[in-house]
Structures are given as C-alpha cells and as structure tokens.
C-alpha cells in the first residue's frame, strides 16, 4: 500500500514537472535546430530557413532547388526551404510572426502585404543590409513597392505582367488564326472572346471534351481580375486606401464584371476551377486563350505550341490598357537569429547569381534595371519577354496599396467569384463595398 502511494505520488510529480517543462520550451523563440527544420548556427555550418509558396516539383519547390544548391556550394550556408500553397503561406506567416516565432529566417512576402507586415513588426528593416548602390539596381517602382513609411522592408525578386497566351496547336486544329496586332493596335477582349467561341464550336461542340475558350490564370483573385476594371478606367481603391465606395461601385467596374459574367454564362470562360487549377488546365492543353503571367510557357506539361501577344483592351477603351503587376518579395523575420546570413541569401536571390538563375528558370519579368535593358537591347531576347518588359513599363497598374489588404482581397475576391457564379453584378459590388468599409471602420 505504501509502495503504491509512493509510486502514485512520483507519477503525479513527474507528470506535473514534465508538463511545466513542455509549456516553457520554445516560448522565448530560441529553439534552434531541435527538430532539424529550424534555423541554426552550430560551429562553422549555418542553416537558414526560408518559407515560401509554390509546392510541388513544378512549383517553386522544384524550380528553386538548383539555386539553393548553388548558394550552398558557394557559401556553405544550407537553405532549409519550406513551401506552402498560396493561401496557406499567408496564414503560416501570420501565425508564426504574431507568435514571435524565430524558427524561420526568410519569408516570401506578397508585395501587397509589405505595408501590413512592416507596420506589424513582422519584417526586419533592410536599409542596413542594402547600400544605396544596391537599391538603385532595381527599377524605382519595384524598389518602392518594398518600402513602407520610408523604410525598406522587402527586396523584389522580380516583377510581373500579363500577356495573352494561346494554344496555337488547338487553334490550328480549329482553323483559327490570331489576327496581327501590336502594342498600338491590340486585340480587344471582345475579339478574343469571339475567336474562343469559334474555336470551341469546332473543337468541342457538345462540351464533352472539357475545353475552355478564354479564361484567366489567377481567376477570382484581385491580382488578375482587377485589370479588367482597370482596362475600363476603374481604380482599385480610394486614395486613402480605406474605402471602396465610389471606386468599385462605378461604371467601369460594373461594365467589366458584366462583360466577364457574360463570358462565363456563354460557356467561353469556366466555372468551378480555382486559380491553382486553371493554369494547370492551360498547361495540359485544355484552354484556348488565357491571360497569364510570363511563367506560362515554361509550365506547359503537354507538347502543344504556345503563342503569346500583348494583353487585350476593351473596345472604346484602347487608350486605357491595363495589366497586373507586382510580385513576390523577400523579407527577414524580425525575430530571426540569423539576420546577417538571411540578408546575404536575399541579396543572392534578388541581385546576384541566384536572381540570374531565377529569371532564367521562371521566366518572370526582372526588377533589375540591367536585366530589363538586356531584354530591350538584345535582338536575340525572346519576343515573349520583350512584350512583358513593354507591358511592365507602360501598362502596369499596381494593386491597391493598403495596410488592410487581407480584408480588401477577401471582399473583392468573393465579388469576382460570386459574379462568375451568376450573382447580380451591382449587388455583389455593393456588398464588397459594405464589407470592406465595415472592416476598415476600426482603422479610421
């Protein structure tokens, strides 16, 4: 009996002590290398952790491997990269950063979140790591997008633009040729829709083959879809960054969304595929025309030939052509224990050899001025990249600059998706206005 009592008391003490130690472990953010996946600095070898988006071998997870291997070979620093889906990355950053987690050093930051993360203290200011000469290597628009309240918080890995891509193989099969066009004499959205309709009639008259006529790579995301409203003269947000009233409930937005809804209702654009799936549909040879980013040709998984041209314009709005822009940036976790090493890695990926490799692999539009000049002046540079460089310089419309971009994208992403699925356009836009204005009431 006495032995049983002693054992019971011992067990209780051990459990209580064990629980206390577990509760204390890691709460000060200094757990390093305990699970093999955190940043560490043991002796001569350094490991830094980078969290980003783009899972899978076809995504960033696969295509950045040579860059990370090259960096490790040159510097001896191992990059432990962790990839998430696009939507999950925002939640991971929010969860880890809000908790003051030090288990990662570098994060990929969507340009629209630089102001939010900077003002929330998630990002380490980078001014001490980048000289004025280094900052001047990027074009001013790209550099400024990584700055919030005069402090540089993030470095651009590239910028982006949108072009009209089409499946030449399928169009040839349908006997359709894309009319001649250039920057000053563009195809219109209406013309492209008509070509897509004709193509579908020939290739998939009963809809059983699953072909899509004309769609948008990042469907129902403000990055991509807002360019339709911008192409009719619509703005993205109020000047103070806190309201949508008088911005999206206006004629350009109503007309743009109405046109898009008709495209879907006519069976030319799709329903039911999300932004992660639509690009795959084009890559697999199931889409005739797609507005997409410059990474599109390199992502093809079938042998179909890809054609490309300037982004379309709307009839009657030929002087208001608009393309999406902005891309991913690199930032340092303000709680990182390896900030110097993290800054060095970011420099490699945004200004150094890593950036050369990245642009080569991913096909994105460079933020570096020397690379932009290279494209413009090189007669052997691909026409695709020349078009991209032109669009980035001449038709790019930046996304809304607001510290409440989460609320902004929720309201408008939902509006685009609702309209796609048949909701009344004006009602959807008015709902978005109400939703966003209610969300920003706390900040006014």
């Amino acid at each position, binding site marked *: 009996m006495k032995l049983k009592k002693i054992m019971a008391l011992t067990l209780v003490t051990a459990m209580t002590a064990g629980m206390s130690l577990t509760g204390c472990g890691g709460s000060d953010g200094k757990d390093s290398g305990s699970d093999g996946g955190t940043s560490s600095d043991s002796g001569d070898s350094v490991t830094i952790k980078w969290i980003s988006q783009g899972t899978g071998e076809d995504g960033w997870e696969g295509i950045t491997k040579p860059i990370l291997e090259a960096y490790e070979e040159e510097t001896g620093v191992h990059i432990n990269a962790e990839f998430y889906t696009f939507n999950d990355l925002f939640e991971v950053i929010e969860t880890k950063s809000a908790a003051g987690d030090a288990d990662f050093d570098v994060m990929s930051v969507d340009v629209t979140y630089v102001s939010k993360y900077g003002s929330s203290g998630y990002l380490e200011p980078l001014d001490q790591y980048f000289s004025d000469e280094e900052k001047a290597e990027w074009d001013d628009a790209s550099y400024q997008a990584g700055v919030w309240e005069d402090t540089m918080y993030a470095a651009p890995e590239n910028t982006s633009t949108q072009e009209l891509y089409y499946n030449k193989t399928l169009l040839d099969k349908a006997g359709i040729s894309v009319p001649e066009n250039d920057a000053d004499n563009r195809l219109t959205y209406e013309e492209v829709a008509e070509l897509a309709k004709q193509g579908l009639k020939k290739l998939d008259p009963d809809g059983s083959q699953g072909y899509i006529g004309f769609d948008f790579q990042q469907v129902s995301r403000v990055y991509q879809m807002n360019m339709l409203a911008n192409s009719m003269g619509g703005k993205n947000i109020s000047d103070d960054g806190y309201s949508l009233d008088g911005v999206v409930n206006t004629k350009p937005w109503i007309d743009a969304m109405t046109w898009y809804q008709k495209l879907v209702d006519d069976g030319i654009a799709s*329903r039911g595929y999300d932004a992660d799936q639509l690009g795959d549909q084009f890559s697999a040879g199931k889409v005739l025309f797609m507005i997409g980013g410059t990474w599109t040709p390199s992502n093809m998984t079938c042998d179909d030939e890809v054609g490309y041209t300037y982004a379309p314009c709307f009839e009657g709005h030929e002087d208001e052509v608009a393309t999406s822009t902005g891309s991913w940036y690199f930032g340092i976790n303000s709680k990182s224990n390896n900030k110097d090493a993290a800054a060095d890695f970011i420099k490699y990926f945004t200004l150094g050899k890593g950036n050369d490799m990245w642009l080569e692999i991913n096909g994105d539009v460079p933020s570096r001025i020397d690379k932009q000049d290279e494209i413009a002046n090189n007669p052997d540079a691909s026409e695709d990249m020349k078009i991209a460089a032109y669009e980035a310089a001449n038709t790019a419309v930046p996304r809304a600059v607001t510290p*409440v971009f989460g609320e902004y994208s929720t309201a408008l992403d939902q509006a685009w998706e609702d309209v796609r699925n*048949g*909701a009344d356009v004006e009602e959807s836009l008015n709902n978005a206005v109400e939703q966003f204005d209610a*969300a920003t009431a706390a900040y006014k």
Partner: protein
Amino acid sequence: MGGIYIKNKWLPYLLILPTILMICIFKIYPIIDSVIQGFSSADSNFTLDNYKLLFADKTFWNSLKVTLKFNIIIIPIQIIVSFIMALFVNVKIRGIEVFRTVFYLPFCISLTISTVIWQMMLNVNNGVINSMLGVLGLKPIGFLIDKKWALLSIILISSWRGCAYWMMFILAGLKGIDSAVYESAKIDGSGFFNTMFRITIPLLKNTWLFVLVANTTANFLLFAPMQIATDGGPQGSTNVLMYEAYKSAFKYSNRPRQACLVTILLIIVMLICFVQNRFMTDKEAHR
C-alpha cells in the same frame, strides 16, 4: 479505516492535478484572455468599441444567420442518421462487425482529406456526381458554387464523416440496454415502433445528452470544410462565425475582432448546451 481515510485524503486531488493544470492552461486561460481581448483597446483600456464595430458589420450578422441555419439542419440529421446506423450495426447477425468497420471508416479519414475528395467529386466540370447526372440526362449542378446547394453540400460532407463517429457512441448506449427489457416488451406484445419510442429511445437518455452536447459543440466550431471547399461563399452562404473568426485572426490580423467573435460563439454554445442539459438530464437518476 478512518485512519487510512485521513492519510489518503489528498491523494485523489494530487492524481487529478495534472489534468486540472492542463485544463487551466490550455482551456480556461485562453478563454479568459480572449474575453479580455474583446473588451480591450490598442492601449489596453476597457472599451466596447470592438463589439460596437462588430454589431455594425453586416458580415457578422450574415455569419450568425448561416451558423444557426447550418446547425439547425445538421444536428438533427447527424443524430437521426447516426441512430439509424447504430440500430443497423446492433443487429445480432454473423459478420455484423464488417458493417461496423465499413460504417466507421469515413471517420478514419481526416476531415481535410475527406473535404478535398468530396470537393473533387462535387466539381461542376468533371466531378463524378455530375458525371452520373449527365448519364441520366440531367444538367450539372454547381454543388459548391451555387448558393442554393453550397450549404447542403457542406452538410453532406460533414455528416458523411461525422455520423460514423456519433454512431459509435449511440451503439455503446444500445449495448448497455439489458436484453431482458426487450424480451419483456416482446412478451407484452410491443411492436417495433412502440419498443423504439417507448423503450429504446428513453433508455438512451444519458447517451442522447452526451451526443447532443458534443455534436452541438463540434458543429458550431466547424469551419474546415467551408474554408477548403467554398471559402465561405458563394455569396457568403457558407461563411460561418468560426470561419469569420479564423479569417479575423489569421488573414486580417484583427485579434480584437476575432476575440469578440469567439466569445459570442462561446456564449451561444454554452446557452444551447445549458438548455439541452436542462431538458435531457435524467432527474430520477439524480434523486
């Protein structure tokens, strides 16, 4: 005997101390912290502004409506279907264990994976359900993109898995009913439905209480299928309160708003569970 009692007086409390500590640290403290955060301003002063802003937000009222609508439909469905499943697998025939296993299998698949699979099956373009409808000459249905169908589709996804879980508790309750009671009823000429409603269901009162309270809590806090399959749409028709709280915390970084939402959810769940407990508690057993 009295001497032994005095010596061991503190032992039971010591033995449950670890559990009490864990409940305090991981349950009670976060609840209190959340409630306080809902009434705190940025400079930590008491304020009702967070709740004023929340109650002025149409999205909140829509989420509340969707949450109540979702639970009014799903709770009775899950309990009735689970009960029927439990009755089936309680039958004494050879090989019934196989059916028990098959019926329980959905719960062995994680909610995330089962939602993704159902999302693929319900896809309007190439989902297997719409393919079958096409074979029958019917038009495809936008199960997850039509606001008439989205909430029902989420209920289907959640119940496919949830009923397997609750079935086991009800089955355990059925096993606890003495077979002599059924024999007596049979001798007295009681038919199937009479036995069901006058003997089986009343004797399962304690089981019903547990299943009802646990099921209510689980469904009020459920949001993963909405996040994965519909993102709260279409047109906010699946945007439940818990998902709105999740977005407030992890997408908007608006902790006060999230704190207000979870506090309101807590109050709703507590009220409902209190009412259920009042009506379902076996007063005879407590006398």
